[in-house]
C-alpha cells in the first residue's frame, strides 16, 4: 500500500488528532517550563544558595533510599524467582505490582504516623546510642527525618525495581546454569553467578528507580520534616526538592520569585532525566551481553 496515500485515509485522520493533541500538550509543557524558568537564570547566583538545602536533601534521601532498596529488591526477586512455590509466586507478583502502583500519600501517611514514631523509639534510638559519635547519626532522633523518608522511599521503589530485575534475571541463558551445575555446585551458587551476570541490568534498574524517586513528592514531603536546612545527621529532618516546591510555593507565589521555582523544577527534571538516560545505557549494554553469550 502506498504510504503517501495511506496518510490521507479516513482512518489515519481519525486517529491523528489524538496523537497530535498529546504531542502538543507535552511540548507546550516543556516550553512553558523553560519560558517561565528563564528569568530566574539571570539571577541564578542568588537563588541557588537558597535551593541548596533542597538539593542536598534530595541527593541524600534518594541515595540512601536506593542503597536500602538494593537488598530489598534483589531479595524480593530471588524470593519470587527461586524460593516460592508456583502458587504463591503469582500472588506475590500481583501484590508487588500493586504496591508499585499504590497512591503514594498512603505510604507517606503510614510513614509519618506509624513507622516514624515506632522507629524513633526503637531503631533510631538504637543507632543514635551506639553510633551517635558519627556525625551522620548524631542528634536526638525525631519523628521525621532523612532516614525515615529514605526508608519509606525504599519500600516504595523496591517492588518496581524488583520486577525489572526479575525480568532480566529470568532471561539469563540456561547454559550458564548448566555450567555451574556441571562443576558440582549447587543452587545458591547458580543464583550468585546469575546475579553477577546481570550486574549491569541491576544497575540499570536501580538507576531507573533513582530517577523516579527524585520526583517523588508526597510521601517524602510527609516524612522528611520540611525543615529547610542542611543537617548532617540522617536522623534529623530536612527537605528535598519536590517537598520544597510543595511547601513553599504557596508563600513565594505572591512575590516575583515564581520563576525561581520553575528553575528548580528544571533542576529536578535534569537530575531525573540524567539517571533515566544512564539507566537506559546500562540496560542496553546488558541486553547485548546476554544475546551474545556463548557464541564463540
Amino acid at each position: 500500500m502506498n504510504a503517501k496515500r495511506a496518510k490521507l485515509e479516513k482512518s489515519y485522520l481519525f486517529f491523528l488528532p489524538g496523537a497530535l493533541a498529546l504531542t502538543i500538550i507535552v511540548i507546550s509543557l516543556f516550553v512553558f517550563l523553560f519560558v517561565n524558568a528563564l528569568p530566574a537564570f539571570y539571577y541564578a547566583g542568588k537563588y541557588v544558595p537558597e535551593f541548596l538545602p533542597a538539593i542536598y536533601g534530595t541527593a541524600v534521601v534518594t541515595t540512601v533510599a536506593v542503597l536500602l532498596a538494593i537488598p530489598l529488591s534483589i531479595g524480593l526477586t530471588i524470593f519470587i524467582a527461586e524460593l516460592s512455590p508456583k502458587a504463591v509466586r503469582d500472588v506475590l507478583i500481583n501484590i508487588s505490582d500493586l504496591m508499585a502502583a499504590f497512591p503514594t500519600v498512603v505510604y507517606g501517611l503510614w510513614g509519618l504516623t506509624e513507622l516514624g514514631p515506632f522507629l524513633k523509639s526503637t531503631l533510631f534510638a538504637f543507632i543514635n546510642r551506639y553510633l551517635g559519635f558519627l556525625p551522620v547519626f548524631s542528634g536526638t532522633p525525631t519523628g521525621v527525618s532523612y532516614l525515615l523518608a529514605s526508608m519509606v522511599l525504599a519500600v516504595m521503589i523496591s517492588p518496581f525495581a524488583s520486577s525489572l530485575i526479575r525480568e532480566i534475571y529470568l532471561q539469563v541463558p540456561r547454559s550458564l546454569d548448566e555450567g555451574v551445575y556441571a562443576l558440582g555446585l549447587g543452587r545458591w551458587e547458580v543464583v550468585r553467578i546469575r546475579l553477577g551476570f546481570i550486574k549491569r541490568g541491576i544497575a540499570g534498574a536501580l538507576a531507573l528507580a533513582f530517577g523516579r524517586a527524585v520526583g517523588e513528592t508526597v510521601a517524602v514531603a510527609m516524612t522528611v520534616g520540611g525543615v529547610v536546612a542542611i543537617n548532617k545527621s540522617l536522623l534529623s529532618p530536612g527537605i528535598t526538592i519536590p517537598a520544597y516546591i510543595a511547601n513553599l510555593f504557596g508563600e513565594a507565589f505572591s512575590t516575583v520569585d515564581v520563576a525561581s521555582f520553575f528553575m528548580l523544577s528544571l533542576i529536578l527534571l535534569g537530575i531525573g532525566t540524567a539517571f533515566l538516560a544512564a539507566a537506559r545505557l546500562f540496560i542496553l549494554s546488558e541486553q547485548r551481553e546476554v544475546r551474545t553469550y556463548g557464541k564463540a
Partner: protein
Amino acid sequence: MIEQGAKFFTAPPPTTDLGLGGIGTVLQGSLVLVATALAFAAPISVLAGAFIAFYPNSFTARLARQLAEVVVEFPTIVIGLSVFGLFIVDLHWGLSALTGAIALAVVMMPYMTIQISEALRVPRAMFEETLYALGMSRLRTMLFVMSAGRRGLLTGLLIGMAKGFGETAALLFTVTTSFNLFFTSFNRPVSAIPVLIYFYGLAPYENWREVAWGAAFVLTVLVLALFSLVRVLARGGMSR
C-alpha cells in the same frame, strides 16, 4: 498494615475543625475531578494510543511515543506547577475544578496512551491480515481491532483512574485546601481525597489525623477495587 481511626467515613457531612466529620466533600471532589479528567484524557489517550499502535513507523507516532515515555516519568509536582502557572496565573482562571481536572488529565494521559498502544499490539497482529483479506477497509479493521482489544483498553483506563484518585502532588496547587465546600460548578474550587490526607496527616490535631487515616482507608479500598477489576478483566481476556 493499615490501621485506621475507628470511625468509618462514608457519610456526606462536611469535615469540621475539631470534631470528627466525614470526608464527604473530598470524596465528591475526587470523583468529580477524576471523572472530568477522564473525560479529557480518555479520548486523547485512546486515539493517540491507537495511532501509535497502528502506524508505528510514522514520524508523528514515534514522536508521540517518545514524548509520552519521557513525560510518564515526570515528577508530578512539576506538572501541577505548570498547570497552575499556565491556567491559574497567566490565564487568571483561579482555582477551580477545571484546573484540577486538567492537571490530573495531563498526568494520566501519557501512561494511558502507552498502556493502550501496548494493549492493541496483540489484537492488531492477530486480526489485521485476516480482516484485510476479507476486504475490509482500513478504518473498519482498526475499529474491529479496538473492539477486540477492548479489555486492554479498559484496563488502561482503569489504571489511569486509579492513578487519578491517588495523585496528590499534581493537585497541590490546583485544588483548594479549604475542605468544607461541596462541588457546585466547574468554576469553583474543589478538593480531593489525597490532598486531604496530606494536609490532615501533617496536622497537629489528633482527630485530624484520624480523619486522614479514614480517608486513606477509603482511598485504599477504592484503588484495590479498581485493581481487582483489572485483574478480573485480565483473566477473562485470555483467548486462544
